[in-house]
């Protein structure tokens, strides 16, 4: 697991409107890459093209190449369902299945792939919950509904659900924006631990968070209203936050706009 992603000349459209233009970047395996930028700059759209989730929005399409360890995930022979299996996703708002128990939420992806013996399932559920730093808090109430947990717990449950199917890459779309500071800290700790095994891409509004958790940071920006968003630069996080190559990045980092 933990594959690399190569994006070349990616453009994203909603109908005729071009939302993002000409993005090229490389994401290293076992690293955390953060996407930052002002609202509407297309960073979430780019994230969602990485596992072909953007195409579930009616009218959305894209051009360019996205390679997962050299394999083009947009080639006609590729099944988007398999892509999403290989590249898991955690959303802005925690979204556990409301009618399922904690246990069933974690096992949901596994059960799709066919029957497994209950013991094996138990084992994977426990490992995934431990990996999401949630096991100690829920081990006595695995059969209770997932919707009964706190927001931060729900988000860790969603992370456990995503990693239970053993993806190559984990995409996180502003995973902490709906959480309180303590839950945010817990998720950030978790990201630090998960990167030993996973390639992680995280979209965040919070520059301190990008600085804290990521190895590399990409800055996206809009040229103007109605213009497509672009990737301004991507570099080591330390470099981006101390000595960026582009003036726009520096302006954004130092809070001059956005």
């Amino acid at each position, binding site marked *: 697991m933990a594959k690399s992603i190569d994006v070349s000349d990616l453009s994203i459209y909603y109908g005729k409107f071009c939302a993002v233009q000409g993005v090229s970047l490389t994401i290293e395996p076992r690293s955390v890459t953060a996407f930052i930028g002002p609202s509407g700059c297309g960073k979430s759209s780019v994230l969602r093209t990485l596992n072909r989730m953007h195409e579930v929005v009616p009218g959305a399409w894209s051009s360019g190449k996205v390679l997962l360890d050299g*394999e083009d995930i947009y080639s006609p022979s590729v*099944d988007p369902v398999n*892509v999403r299996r290989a590249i898991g996703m955690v959303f802005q708002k925690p979204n556990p299945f409301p009618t399922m128990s904690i246990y069933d939420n974690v096992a949901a992806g596994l059960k799709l792939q066919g029957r497994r013996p209950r013991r094996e399932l138990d084992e*994977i559920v426990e490992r995934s919950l431990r990996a999401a*730093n949630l*096991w100690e808090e829920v081990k006595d109430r695995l059969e209770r509904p997932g919707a009964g947990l706190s927001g931060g717990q729900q988000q860790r449950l969603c992370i456990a659900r995503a990693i239970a199917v053993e993806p190559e890459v984990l995409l996180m779309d502003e995973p902490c924006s709906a959480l309180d500071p303590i839950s945010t800290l817990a998720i950030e700790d978790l990201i630090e631990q998960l990167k*030993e095994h996973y390639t992680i891409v995280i979209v965040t509004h919070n520059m301190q968070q990008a600085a804290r958790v990521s190895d590399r940071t990409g800055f996206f920006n809009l040229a103007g209203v109605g213009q497509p968003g672009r990737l301004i630069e991507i570099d080591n996080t330390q470099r981006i936050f101390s000595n960026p190559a582009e003036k726009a990045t520096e302006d954004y980092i130092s809070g001059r706009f956005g």
Partner: protein
Amino acid sequence: MSILKTPVPGASTLSGTSTLSGARLRRGTLALVAVGAIAVTGLLETFTPVSGWAGSVLMAAAVYLVGQTVISFLVEGRRHALDRLVTTAVYAAFALAMLPLGAVLFKVVQRGGGLINGTFLTHSLRNIGPTDTGGGVYHGIVGTLEQAALASLISIPLAMLTAIYLVEYGRGWFARLVTFFVDVMTGVPSIVAGLFIFTVWVLMLGLNRSGFAATLALTILMIPIVVRSTEEMLKLVPDSLREASYALGVPKWRTILKVVVPTAVPGIVTGIMLGVARVMGETAPLLLLNGFTSSINFDPFSGPQAALPLIVWDQAGRPNPQSITRAWGSALVLIVMVLLLNLGARALARLSRTR
């Protein structure tokens, strides 16, 4: 914070083995399956006595479903085979649901269309014997329109006031009780509504059957429809409009009459038209309440009055072909009236949304 002690699952097991591109079926393959299904159906029909085109279509569809699932299972695997099976089944369900609508409209036009002419629309069945041809349904058109209009006249004010009460005033147990009873009214079978008016009007008060007696039963059936739709529309009016009005010192009742209701009016009218269309086609209460006549009666308050659904019912129950043809002809007139009201209501709703 707990520390990651157990190794994350599958760190060594999966890399390199997973591939993104599963084998998928091509469109051409599915077309082939379809052709094959038709061929197999043709073959099967020479052995088994499947009768009629409906049987053939159903059989071909079943053969296609099986063939597609088996091939998909072999090529794409269990999950995709199931996905295709469900997709095809869902499309088939929709087609199956549309089948009766198409068949009813086609049949009514085919059997009744030949009858529609000036005479049919402007004459009654007075002095027309069962085996005679000729005559018309004018008496039914008059009755149906008058009864629907009267029912609207009674039920619209009552229903709209009730809806306004529920949205603008209703709080506490009384409002909950009214909501509950409106729900109950929605479920009253039309024959029970007819039976009730029959009990009161004919048995208790000793009054004669008439168009107006039927109107009362139709009113009971129409009120809940209009209350429901009006309520929904009033709830859609944003509270900010009401507050803007209150902030200018406009009293509540004028706010409701001049701001809230006018804003919701297109939706309310749509709901009313659908309600009218609904009661126009009601038959069961009319059986008990209209009395029988084949003559024109413009006065709904005295003497029996005909109605289109009643004519359909009466003529369909007779054994001779002339009557049955008349049943189809009256059905065509009735269905055109009802569908026009329905389409008009939809068009109105659409118009007011896009403008």
